[in-house]
């Protein structure tokens, strides 16, 4: 019995990997850096993973949906509980100083620009 469960869990894992949801995002930039918002409903802080490896940003999350025992699907828009999306960053962004916040299933990720890339006002001297 326990064995059967393991097998089906593994199968489910495999299927999840095949069919991860690509969360919709908003991305915008201001003087200090880039801000990214991603919709990941059902994901709690413990089940969210953000990784910045060199120039690749990877966002992953697993939704936890409470369900009654023996529930069968009557209709489904959402077919997976796994979210995954990745982006490549450019070198002026400082991944180590990134700041993430998750509220009501929305991830807000701020990646600042390195100090030397932040715009500096240049004054013109009159000789």
């Amino acid at each position, binding site marked *: 019995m326990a064995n059967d469960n393991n097998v089906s869990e593994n199968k489910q894992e495999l299927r999840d990997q095949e069919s991860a949801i690509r969360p919709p995002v908003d991305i915008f930039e201001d003087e200090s850096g880039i801000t990214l918002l991603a919709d990941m409903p059902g994901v709690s802080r413990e089940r969210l993973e953000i990784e910045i490896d060199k120039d690749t940003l990877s966002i992953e999350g697993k939704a936890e949906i409470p369900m009654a025992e023996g*529930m069968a699907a009557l209709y*489904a828009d959402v077919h997976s509980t796994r979210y995954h999306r990745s982006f490549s960053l450019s070198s002026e962004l400082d991944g180590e100083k990134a700041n993430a916040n998750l509220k009501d299933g929305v991830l807000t990720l701020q990646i600042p620009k390195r100090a030397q890339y932040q715009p500096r006002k240049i004054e013109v001297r009159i000789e």
Partner: protein
Amino acid sequence: MFRHLSSLEGNLFDDYRRMEQQLDRIFGEAYMPNGIRSVARGTFPPINIGGTQDQVDVYLFVAGVDPKSLSISIQQNLLTIDGERATHRDDLSSGYYRHERFSGTFHRVVTLPDDVDPDRVEAGYRDGVLRITVQRREATKPRQIEVN
């Protein structure tokens, strides 16, 4: 743990559904009638509905929506949800690189099975998922009929 909602009987149903969705795209959804209250794929918010013998659960994936802004009503077996998701950063001068997330008001109507009891409904919101649970009416017990 999402198995029951993502597939009825293993992979077969999923595969069938994927195929059906592809056909939908190819044939412009013309080969099969759509439910009269069904909406286009990708409409916000996505909805899942699951049922047991005792209850029907409706899940709305409404990330970032203030639950107080939601208006939920039920008339017999017709469940209506209205809400709004605030627009983010209207003032942004440089604009967005990507703007994929929905913002604005939404309205969805869901037809539930006929035997739900509109007087016994509960709703809860967590991590951006709204769950509405409607109890089913007591099922009438099977009755033995004797032939005289």
